């Protein structure tokens, strides 16, 4: 079966695109899929750092496109997962070094040999974003429960609709159930109400994400982390499994939680 090509994008910066790509890649690859992730943020590469592969980069995506190396030479194998590869972005070039048709050609060469190609998009809606979505079969839009991030996600979904990229699926990242409960944060329902697209995952706020990103070992490796669990669930949904959403509402006393479990509240 040819690979599913999935782009993760957001419009706004800093909402967790790169973290999501790294974690989904790890979750898919530890589940037996062959995965290649491509860092589309040329000039501001990050994905290599989060995957902990920074010091192994010899060739990058622009080298492949400009013919200085073969595709295989630019693919860096993960430290832990033998079926996970990274094609890093170039740090010393800019977004104009790559065109949407370059991306199409590159991805075409990967399609037959892998199960998933994950593309990390840069923030914004300019050239880099256009490159990142050019080859996508499916686009995941990631947002935080914040008004500005949701506004940008809405804009991006509109562009994807105009480009006939099919219906986008939404990841809500860094949801804080305690704040939602106090009405100090948009709830998942508020976000969905505005964006009106399919929800593919809700990732709770979790300090382990930052800790593990800094260590170069994505949180999806950590069996105890809730955020890691959320990313593993999204990965399973990408494979077509039906997985119920996590119960994030772990606030309140033990008694209240037991009551909720018993369906009495």
């Amino acid at each position, binding site marked *: 079966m040819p690979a599913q090509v999935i782009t993760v994008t957001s419009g706004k910066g800093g909402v967790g695109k790169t973290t999501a790509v790294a974690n989904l890649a790890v979750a898919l690859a530890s589940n037996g899929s062959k995965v290649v992730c491509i860092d589309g943020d040329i000039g501001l590469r990050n994905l290599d750092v989060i995957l902990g592969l920074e010091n192994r980069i010899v060739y990058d995506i622009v080298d492949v496109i400009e013919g200085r190396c073969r595709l295989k030479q630019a693919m860096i194998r993960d430290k832990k997962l033998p079926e996970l590869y990274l094609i890093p972005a170039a740090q010393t070039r800019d977004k*104009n070094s790559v*065109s949407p*048709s*370059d991306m*199409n*050609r590159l991805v075409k060469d990967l399609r037959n040999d892998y199960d998933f190609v994950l593309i990390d998009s840069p923030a914004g809606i300019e*050239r880099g974003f256009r490159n990142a979505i050019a080859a996508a079969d499916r686009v995941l839009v990631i947002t935080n429960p914040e008004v500005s991030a949701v*506004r*940008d996600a*809405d*804009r991006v*979904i*509109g*562009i994807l*609709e*105009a480009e006939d990229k099919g219906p986008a699926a939404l990841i809500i990242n860094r949801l804080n159930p305690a704040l939602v409960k106090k009405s100090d944060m948009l709830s998942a329902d508020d976000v969905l109400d*505005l964006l*009106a697209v399919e929800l593919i995952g809700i990732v709770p706020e979790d300090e382990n994400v930052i800790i593990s990103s800094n260590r170069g070992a994505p949180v999806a490796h950590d069996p105890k982390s809730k955020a890691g669990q959320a990313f593993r669930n999204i990965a399973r949904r990408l494979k077509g499994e039906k997985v119920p959403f996590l119960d994030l509402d772990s606030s309140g006393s033990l008694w209240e939680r037991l009551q909720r479990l018993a369906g009495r509240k």
Partner: protein
Amino acid sequence: MTGTNSLIQIKGLRDGLLVSLDDAPWDEQRIAFLAQVDAQPDFFKGARLALDVASQVLHVNELVDLRDQLSERGISLWAVISESPTTENTAQLLGLATRVSKPRPEESRQFSVRDLGDETALFLERTLRSGTRIEFPGHVVVFGDVNPGAEIVAEGNVIIWGRLRGMVHAGSKGNKNAVICALDLSPTQLRIAEEVAAALNPQENPKPEIARINENGKLQAEFWSPG
């Protein structure tokens, strides 16, 4: 205009000229275009030119030739836009841009309707998302939501069968009798003719509302009551 020239379209861009060719044989088009340039040397002199060559497959020598011929005439070629990856490659090799900024057709639409009667309306059966701008010289009816960041500018009335949370300007050419109705009227801003009203507070249980200019010349929204 002669038959050959009609192959070539020239448009002004923000930062130069955009010349669009089609898929007819390259040499024929090149010669026709250069002839057109030579016919109006003053118009073209000093221009920054972007060339849209449709799906023509062009190699380095062809583009270099054209670039030289243009620069002899005082025209600088800075971008070549093409559907063909080969041509894009060629352009990149020569250090030319392969994209120019032009508004995406879907995101900003202006409709031109001639002989506009009173009863002309645009019906949109979709949700307008942030960044969408609809301009229409008549009425606009949206069957869907208008999200924050979307804009509708209409010379007539605007009716939203859904939630209005973006910006709507009705009676944009000064018609003070224009109205704006929505099932849930929670816009970021409303305008009718020259009147502007800022965000209304979102309602707990939205009811259909209609906004118009009242006797005092102020924008006012009231609940819709049938009959």
